[in-house]
């Protein structure tokens, strides 16, 4: 059953995106990414040696994945744009996850600045995936600006509190036409499965894998959970209770082939 996620024309088999922050070392990160089967991996441009000298994080990311550099550290749209350009100039490709966080206390994204950065970077030809606080109108503006997918947070980054903003995300899933990737807050595989069952197109998990006692095993667990959640969603989990055909129809008698009055 082929069920690829398509972002900017690219087919992605795994709906689990992973991050590269917070790991104890690069070997562990490499192995966890491998075991997650993730094909999209985000990396903070601010932590990458852009001069190309010395061994840095990018060389430890499995080669077959799509690298999605992020602009973490940016506190304004202008900074995000400059960071994204730096990443591209250093050969990191044209995908970029926009992160504009001007609040250092909770690390919540600044939607207004994120919309500005989305506009500017789409114009420059980037494939833009903005990370945002789930808000329908802000997401619509990002979509209008040309975002390739929208990445709302489930709960504050690193909080492991799960999908606390479920209702908002559900509305976005219904109303936004580009893929929705739930990013931040997912602390357990069951929560990743929950996001997928809700109809999210993908999830991004970092802290829960990187800071687990066994990140490699946890990466596997998330891979399985995301697949399970997606399969359940495709099978028609919620709609089935209302729309699916019952095995013993109650109104079959009204159709010509039904048993009804004949």
């Amino acid at each position, binding site marked *: 059953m082929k069920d690829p996620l398509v972002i900017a024309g690219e087919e992605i088999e795994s709906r689990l995106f992973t991050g590269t922050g917070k790991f104890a070392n690069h070997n562990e990160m490499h192995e966890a990414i491998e075991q997650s089967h993730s094909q999209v991996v985000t990396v903070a441009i601010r932590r990458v040696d852009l001069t190309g000298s010395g061994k840095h994080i990018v060389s430890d990311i499995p080669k077959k994945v799509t690298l999605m550099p992020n602009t973490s550290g940016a506190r304004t749209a202008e900074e995000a744009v400059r960071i994204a350009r730096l990443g591209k100039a250093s050969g990191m490709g044209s995908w970029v996850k926009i992160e504009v966080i001007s609040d250092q206390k909770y690390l919540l994204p600044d939607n207004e600045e994120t919309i500005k950065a989305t506009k500017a970077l789409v114009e420059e030809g980037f494939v833009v995936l903005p990370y945002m606080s789930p808000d329908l109108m802000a997401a619509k503006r990002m979509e209008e600006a040309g975002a390739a997918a929208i990445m709302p947070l489930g709960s504050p980054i690193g909080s*492991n509190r799960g999908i606390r903003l479920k209702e908002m995300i559900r509305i976005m899933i219904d109303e936004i036409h580009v893929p929705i990737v739930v990013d931040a807050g997912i602390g357990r595989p069951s929560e990743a499965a929950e996001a997928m069952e809700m109809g999210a197109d993908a999830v991004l998990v970092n802290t829960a894998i990187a800071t687990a006692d066994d990140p490699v095993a946890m990466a596997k667990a998330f891979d399985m959970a995301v697949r399970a959640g997606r399969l359940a969603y495709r099978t028609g989990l919620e709609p089935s209770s209302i729309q699916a055909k019952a095995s013993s129809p109650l109104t079959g008698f009204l159709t010509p082939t039904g048993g009804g009055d004949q």
Partner: protein
Amino acid sequence: MSFYNVYEKLKDQPFHTWFNEVTTTDVEKVLRKDRLTESDYLTLLSPAAEGYIEEMAQKAHRVTLQHFGYTMQLFLPLYVSDYCVNTCKYCSFSVDNVFPRRRLTMEEVEEEAQAIAAMGIEQIIILSGESRIHSSVDYLTKILKVLKKYFSSVGLEVQPMDREDYEKLVGSGIDALTVFQETYDENIYRALHTKGPKRFYNYRLDTPERGCQAGMRSVTIGALLGLNDWRKESYIAGLHGHYLQDKYLETEIGMSFPRVQPNAGSFQPEVHVTDKNMVQAMLAFRLFLPRAGIIVSTRETPQLRDQLIPLGVTKMSASSSTEVGGYAQPEETQSQFEISDERSVEEIRQLLHKKGYQPVMKDWQIV
């Protein structure tokens, strides 16, 4: 509004009584909480909380992992000048101490930068004695031009300046500011700083706030432990961090817990702050402000620094020299204070790996 308004309300409060009234039940209650109030913070700094240091450590470790992961940023201080116009009784750079002073030329700055970059360090802090003439904005801007070629982040720990000066420096690429209040007790402060512009308590107290207003990405504060009751100092320093974090959401607030070290004068600390005391201060702060940075310098011994790694620390200096020109030509001048951990950057990297931590050499790019 300035943090002085907060301090004013606190300065004559019965801290001693407050701390001694805390019971073990109070401590246990605080340890069950997710978010701490100011009085919860005070509870964790009390003598009663000394019996719960292990519980505090476990929790601090978990909270830090959650927010920062298994990472540790490494940085180095670069001393550019030891000219100073102040008379701090506890500091070797005090104008009262007679020794040949110097400041680096741009060629020397470049040599130092090359020596530091060769160690693999990408984040540095420019330090100097406090002198508006010898470490002027103009001089610092010139230094920055040289350093930008070698480092991804450059911070400042020099004399306090006006907001306009900080704005100029931020404009040229300085992204971090460190300024220690030394002691938050106004009377002790005046007694320790007998001459020079540092005597103005309020100007120094408002310096971190001017840094935030000028757009510094990170601002680190702290009290020099040993000059006064450490519980009280830690409490007020923590409230200062809280005040800044609430008011300037865009700035990353950091805290350091330096203790008075041997220096060229004959100053003896007023209060002996034990390792246990410092650890308690650090843990209480971590639980109070889970998202703040905690910085540990090479003032501490290797044995202690090793143990501090999992307790909430996010940033460590490594292989520091506290002499002007100390990297390219070691041991030629007066150091600001004696460092205790002389291990190389490579040794610290190995140590971090062994402890299950990833050394982070770069965490920002001057853009």
